[in-house]
Structure formats: structure tokens, C-alpha cells
């Protein structure tokens, strides 16, 4: 009896029910998104901390030791220039993840900002931004990326800047969808009574935009941002696979798979292309699982959990 009384007391104890507290609690109850999160943490540590434990990090090419199958010294073997595949996989992860994150941040910033402004001011501003978005959305994404990348190759952009340019290209292709989503949200939020109340309080536009509207769409930005990281990693891999994204000597998962292009590598040396392929596969799947979980956790309409 006494025990149950204590338990009841514990349950009834008022918990701080801030919005984010609830989201985190709901997220912690879901298995697949947590699995995704765990794998992402692993792949981040693998890529960013892993190379420091590798004995081959400072060693470049080694002509005496090329195309070796996996062994105790080289867990994933070596490539055609004698570089350790495992170390390269880690370094490639850095670049692929950075490109994914960078492209996401840029497209969320551009898309979010333009979407908020279009939805709030409407009229001519809205027309201009949305028509630009429409044009970008009617052009097929991949050929557009190819053309941009080809122009860049023509201009001989130094390799160390290439990843930033790849980020920029991906975000140019990525922002219109998000801008539309944000705009539609802002349009519907603007009709809500609390926005009329801010008008009646005489608040400045900046305050309305960034203090009242922005917090309302942050969940949306987080979810679509998370999901877009996966897409960006995939697009980057595609570009790099065709030699148009990140180019050697910099490694990315995409340009590592390029080795599958040659029949001998494809048939006889699977250690060259299977690991980066799996890395892309699992990273993107984890990101999507996490994104879906976040969407469910944030969605206020799903209170029955």
C-alpha cells in the first residue's frame, strides 16, 4: 500500500513540459530512430576521430603494396596506389558528411529565409522568389548539377575549394522545395489569431518574423533539414562518382566507388567499392530513420504516445 502511494506520488510529480523536453522524451521511446542516431554517432566518430588511430594517415601512395586484399595490416586492403582503404574510408567520411551537413545548412538557411519572407510579405516579393523557385524545380536536378560541375571543371577551381562549391551547388538545387514548404506554413500561420494579436500590439516586422513565426516553423526546418542531409550525401556521391564533385586526391565515398567502374576492380577487388557503398547506404538510411522519428516526435497531432 505504502509503496503504491509513493509510486503515485512519483508519477504525479509535475514534470517540466517544455516543447523540446516532450520531443526528446517521445524520441527516446522510438527504437528505429534511436538506432539511426546511434549509427550516425558511430560514423561521425569513425570519420572524425578514427583517422588519428590509423598508422597510415600520413602515408600517401605506396607503389610496392598495391591492390592488396584485406589483411591484418590493412583491414580493408589497399587500392591501386597502395593507400590503406580503411583510412581513406574514414577521411572520405569526413568530406561526405561535411558536404551533406554544409549543403543542408545552406539550403535550410536560403530556403527558410526566402520562404519566411515570401509567406509574410506576399505580393511582388513572393512572386519573384517563388517564380525563381519554380524555375529551379522544373529543371531536372541531376543534369543541372552536371552542367554546373562541368563549368567548374572548365574554370579549374582549386581542389581544396571544390567541396565548398559542391555544397553550394547542392544547396542551390535543394532550397526551392524547402522554401515552398516554409512559405505555405507561414501563410497558414499568418492567418492564426496570435499573429493578428502581434499586429494589434504594434510589434515590428522583424520581431514578428523572427520571434513569432520562426519558432513555429523550427520543427519543420529540423525535420526537413535532417532528411535533406541524406539527399545531399547521395547527390555528392553521384557527382563524385562521375568525377564532377570532390576529385582525387581528396577522397569522398562517391569517388571511392568510382573504382567499380573498371571491370577488374569490380570483379576481383570488392574491398575497394563495397565499404564506401555500405557506408553511404547505412548513413543515409540512419539519417532518414532519425528524420522520420523526429517528425513523429515533433508533430503535435500525434499526442497519443
Amino acid at each position: 500500500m505504502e509503496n503504491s502511494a509513493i509510486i503515485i506520488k512519483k508519477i504525479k510529480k509535475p514534470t517540466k513540459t517544455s516543447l523540446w523536453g516532450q520531443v526528446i522524451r517521445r524520441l527516446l521511446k522510438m527504437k528505429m530512430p534511436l538506432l539511426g542516431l546511434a549509427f550516425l554517432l558511430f560514423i561521425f566518430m569513425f570519420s572524425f576521430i578514427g583517422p588519428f588511430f590509423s598508422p597510415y594517415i600520413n602515408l600517401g601512395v605506396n607503389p610496392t603494396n598495391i591492390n592488396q586484399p584485406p589483411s591484418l595490416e590493412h583491414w580493408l586492403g589497399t587500392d591501386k596506389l597502395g593507400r590503406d582503404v580503411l583510412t581513406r574510408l574514414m577521411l572520405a567520411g569526413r568530406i561526405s558528411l561535411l558536404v551533406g551537413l554544409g549543403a543542408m545548412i545552406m539550403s535550410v538557411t536560403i530556403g527558410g529565409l526566402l520562404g519566411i519572407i515570401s509567406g509574410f510579405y506576399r505580393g511582388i516579393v513572393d512572386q519573384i522568389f517563388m517564380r525563381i523557385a519554380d524555375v529551379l524545380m522544373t529543371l531536372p536536378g541531376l543534369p543541372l548539377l552536371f552542367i554546373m560541375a562541368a563549368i567548374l571543371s572548365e574554370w579549374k577551381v582549386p581542389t581544396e575549394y571544390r567541396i565548398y562549391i559542391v555544397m553550394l551547388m547542392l544547396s542551390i538545387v535543394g532550397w526551392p522545395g524547402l522554401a515552398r514548404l516554409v512559405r505555405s506554413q507561414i501563410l497558414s500561420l499568418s492567418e492564426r489569431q496570435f499573429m493578428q494579436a502581434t499586429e494589434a500590439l504594434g510589434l515590428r516586422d522583424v520581431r514578428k518574423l523572427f520571434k513569432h513565426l520562426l519558432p513555429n516553423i523550427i520543427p519543420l526546418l529540423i525535420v526537413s533539414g535532417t532528411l535533406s542531409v541524406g539527399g545531399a550525401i547521395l547527390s555528392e556521391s553521384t557527382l563524385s562518382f562521375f568525377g564532377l564533385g570532390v576529385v582525387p586526391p581528396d577522397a569522398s565515398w562517391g569517388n571511392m566507388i568510382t573504382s567499380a567502374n573498371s571491370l577488374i576492380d569490380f570483379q576481383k577487388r570488392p574491398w575497394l567499392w563495397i565499404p564506401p557503398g555500405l557506408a553511404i547506404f547505412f548513413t543515409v538510411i540512419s539519417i532518414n530513420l532519425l528524420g522520420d522519428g523526429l517528425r513523429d516526435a515533433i508533430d503535435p497531432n500525434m499526442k497519443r504516445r
Partner: protein
Amino acid sequence: MTTTVLEVKNLLTQYHTGDGVISAVNEVSFSIPKGQTVCLVGESGCGKSAVAMSIMGLIDPGAGAVKNGEIFFNRVDLLNIKKHELRQLRGNDISMIFQEPMTSLNPVLTVGSQIMEPIMEHEIISKKEAKRRALELIKLVGIGRSEEIFDSFPHQLSGGMLQRIMIAIALSCSPELLIADEPTTALDVTIQAQILDLLRSLKEQREMSMLLITHDLGVVAEVADYVIVMYAGKVIEEGPVVELFENPKHPYTQGLLKAKPVIGQRQEELYTIPGQVPNLATLKPSCFFSERCEHCMSICKEETPSIQTFDNEQQVACWLYKEVSIV
């Protein structure tokens, strides 16, 4: 002679609807003296809220507009004011309490930050000072545990609490004129009484003028100094509260007062005014109440009665009294 805070002259506000242009507010004139409470009474859809929205300049330009008339606030013409000047007036000198406390607060911001906002917008003040003021306001509107309430989100509070918070926000910059659009409609009776008491005492403390919009005659009797009865966008009767309640002249006002349930008396059936509010889009020149009026005469169907003043400051727009005065 007391000074006039708000003066509305011949206000005409029209909305575009599928049926055509409707005049939600039709030639409405009234004024609010300093420190007084004026009540705007009428059935749903008679244009009460449209009056408030016109004063605040909140009519959605896509839906309608103020077509004619003048609105003066302390001799400032609100209809021909620059946009940024209007912004400085709103929330600072004129503020408004909305009908639905549940939907009028931003769900993702804490109550405290929403009280602080107008203070920080309109006054040069540090964040710390604004917070202190916000906590004071929470106490002022009769909520204890102000620190705790300050950090809570709207969904954690009850409707009555939220309405108090709305009042706190409206009062945050000590406005001269408070427009309350059905502030108690969404609340239950005990909370209603508390909110009304609160509004009345705050009004007295701060010498604030108030425009109270309601359909509840009990509320009117409680707080009003002066009453304006609206029907189908027009003012049909107005007068000091005591006169109007004791001696309603317009058949509509009489009907309204009869339709009010009296506590302690159980009637077989409550009185209702027969018929429906007319469709505003299809009105012809006539007394708009004529369809439902038991004293309807032939002239009522042909001409719109103008408003006419009686000795006791009561004003009525009805042909019944016109005839009497002519005869």
C-alpha cells in the same frame, strides 16, 4: 467637460463576399470620454467586432476596408496616419483584448516573453527591467506564483488564466484606450465575474477608457457607463446604461432585454425575437429590423430611420418615435 479619447464619425466598413459588398459597419458614430466604459451590444454578426477591427486598423485588406468616415484618437486621425505611427500607437496607447484567449497567444513562446514583448517594443528598457514589469503585471491581474507562470507555455494554463495574461499584455504599456472584444465569452461564469471585476478596478486605477464589445447584457449592466446597441451594422439605440436598461425604446432593445434569462425565475420558455438577422448583402433602404419587428409600419419598409435624441441623452433610430414627435 471631460475630454474625448476616441471619436468615431460615420464609419462605413465594407467587406467583399461572394454575395457582393456588405456593409458590416454602416454609418456608425460614437465617442468615448476619458475614463468611461462604452459597451457595444448586439447579436452575432451585427458588426461589433468589425468596429473594433476598424479602429485598430486590422481589417484584412484582401477582405474589406474602411470606406468612409473618420476615427480620431486624441485628435489623431487613425485612418490617415503613417504606418509606423500607427504601429507605435497600437499596443502602446490603444490596446486590444481578443475574444479567444486560447488562440491569441503564440503556442511556442512562454507567457512571460509574450508579456515582455510590447514593453520592449514600445519603451526603451532593459530586458531585466521588462521582466520585472512583466512579473508585476502577472501579479496585478490576480495570478499568484508569478515566477512559475512567467516560464510556462500557453497550453499549460487554463482559459481563465490565459485571458488574464491577455489582459496583462494589453495593459503592459498603460494604454489610454482598451478595446475588449468579448473578453469573457470563452470563459465560465465565475471566471467571467473575476475578469470583469479586474477590468473595472484596473480601469478606475489607471483612468483608462474602455470599449467593451459583448452580446451579454449582464456584462453590460455590470461595467458599462454608456451603451450602444447595434443591429445589422447600424446603431439603433444608445444611451447611458441606467436609462437604457430602465426604458428601452427600440423594439429590438426591448426584445434583447426580454430575452435575457432572470436567475431565480423559471419561465416556460425564454422570450426570443422572431426571425433571423437579415442577410447584409440584400438590404434595401428600410429599417433593417422591420422584418422581425412587432410594431412594423409601412414606412419602416421604405425608409431608413435616422437617429434621434431624447432629453435624457438616449438616442433611438426608430419610426415609432419619429411619428410621435411629428404628431
